[in-house]
């Protein structure tokens, strides 16, 4: 079997793994997105205790290895969870660990974007009678989320690639599928090259989609280099 015949023969299995990788990424990035926004808002607008908690969370998840966090949640937590009758699948554990970690990084991107919005926007919103929550929801976040897209794209790309760490939980995502194929066929180099090319294809497609999104929601004068009036 030459390279192409081999690639063709293993592709169906790898695509099954790819689906798991995509699901893993989608769920964990979404978890990180929601939690990240609250952490960022907590850091910027929260009262001191909220700020300290948000800050501590971000420091912990950015300051410790993702793999350790993954192992902690999959192997470390279950005995305690079992006491309250909860069992956790490798997939859930991976989503939670990757999502909690991603939240810390996403929060920092959101915080930067929120803080780049001029104070006057909040004041104008409050002066027309919006509550702080309304001002954040209708004025601050719509601007911050547009501004954040280019840097947030990085986090999504990391998310896709770091999902391969779920390999350590024996989750049959793309990388672990490759490993299993190698165990049977012993064609290590070819298999990993194909696995790498699939990751590359996903990253390129996702980057392109995000660029399209960025253009679609673009507003003149927002997120571009500040123009002088």
């Amino acid at each position, binding site marked *: 079997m030459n390279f192409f015949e081999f690639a063709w023969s293993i592709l169906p299995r790898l695509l099954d793994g790819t689906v798991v990788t995509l699901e893993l990424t989608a769920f964990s990035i979404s978890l990180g997105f929601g939690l990240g926004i609250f952490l960022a808002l907590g850091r910027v607008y929260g009262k001191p205790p909220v700020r300290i908690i948000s800050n501590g969370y971000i420091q912990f998840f950015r300051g410790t290895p993702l793999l350790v966090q993954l192992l902690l949640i999959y192997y470390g937590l279950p005995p305690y969870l079992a006491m309250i009758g909860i069992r956790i699948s490798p997939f859930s554990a991976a989503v939670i660990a990757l999502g909690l970690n991603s939240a810390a990084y996403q929060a920092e991107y959101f915080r930067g974007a929120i803080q780049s919005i001029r104070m006057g926007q909040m004041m*104008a919103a409050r002066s027309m009678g919006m509550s702080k929550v309304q001002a954040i929801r*209708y004025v601050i976040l719509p601007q911050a989320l547009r501004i954040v897209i280019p840097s947030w794209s990085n986090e999504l790309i990391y998310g896709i690639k770091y999902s391969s760490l779920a390999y350590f939980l024996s989750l049959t995502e793309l990388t672990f599928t490759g490993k299993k194929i190698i165990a049977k066929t012993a064609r290590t180099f070819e298999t990993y090259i194909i696995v790498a090319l699939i990751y590359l294809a996903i990253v390129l497609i996702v980057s392109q989609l995000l660029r399209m999104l960025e253009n679609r929601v673009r507003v003149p004068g927002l997120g571009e280099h500040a123009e002088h009036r």
Partner: protein
Amino acid sequence: MVPPGDETSGNVVLRVENLHKRYGKEEVLRGISFELRRGETKVVIGPSGTGKSTLLRCINQLSMPDAGAVWLEDVEITNRKVDINAVRQSIGFVFQDFNLFSHLTALRNVSIGLTRVKKMKKEDALEKARSELARVGLADKADAYPAELSGGQQQRVSIARALAMDPKLILFDEPTSALDPELIGEVLSVMIELARSGMTMLVVSHEMGFARAVANEIIFMEGGIILEEGSPAQLFTHSKHERTKQFLHKITELYGESGDE
């Protein structure tokens, strides 16, 4: 909660009583009191750093006064039990640097307060927003984003945004100071129209042409107090304090009489 005063107090839209505010060691407002009747325009002048902007912000409580009271009609809005968000709906605020919402078109800038704060139906809000934009002469710019508008146009949109809420009064914080000289006139003529149509306005500005044209009274602030107040004619010809005379002379020289007709 009945405000002190005579029978005509029913016409008082805004009453400021002995307002104090300090930032750290600096006492910015040291007991400011005045009234604004329905349909009146008062212009606040004074050297920079004398608390004019702070006064406006203490009135709608973008910053909290340390002492004193603010009454809007017959409600003491400095009372902590008052829902300040509800109160602010009826106090328009026009900023020096416009502060239009950057992600919204001119039209949506004007309608957002109607839909999100006043919970008006979207079609009704857009219709009202269109008519307010027309009132400031910008019907054709409805779909432009702030960054696509000149400073003068942005300020007119922000006036339309304030008007859309049907405010009881509008506070103007140096509305023309950030504008290129050739753009000041278009904003002032909108404000003059507004004053003549009976809007109640408190305007921090050194545009004496505007003051002479429409102000019922000029308030001269210095060092956190009101040094003198009176009609423009009174202040220009018979000011009681030498300091007022000097200051009026200086700003008339500096700012000229733009907006005068």
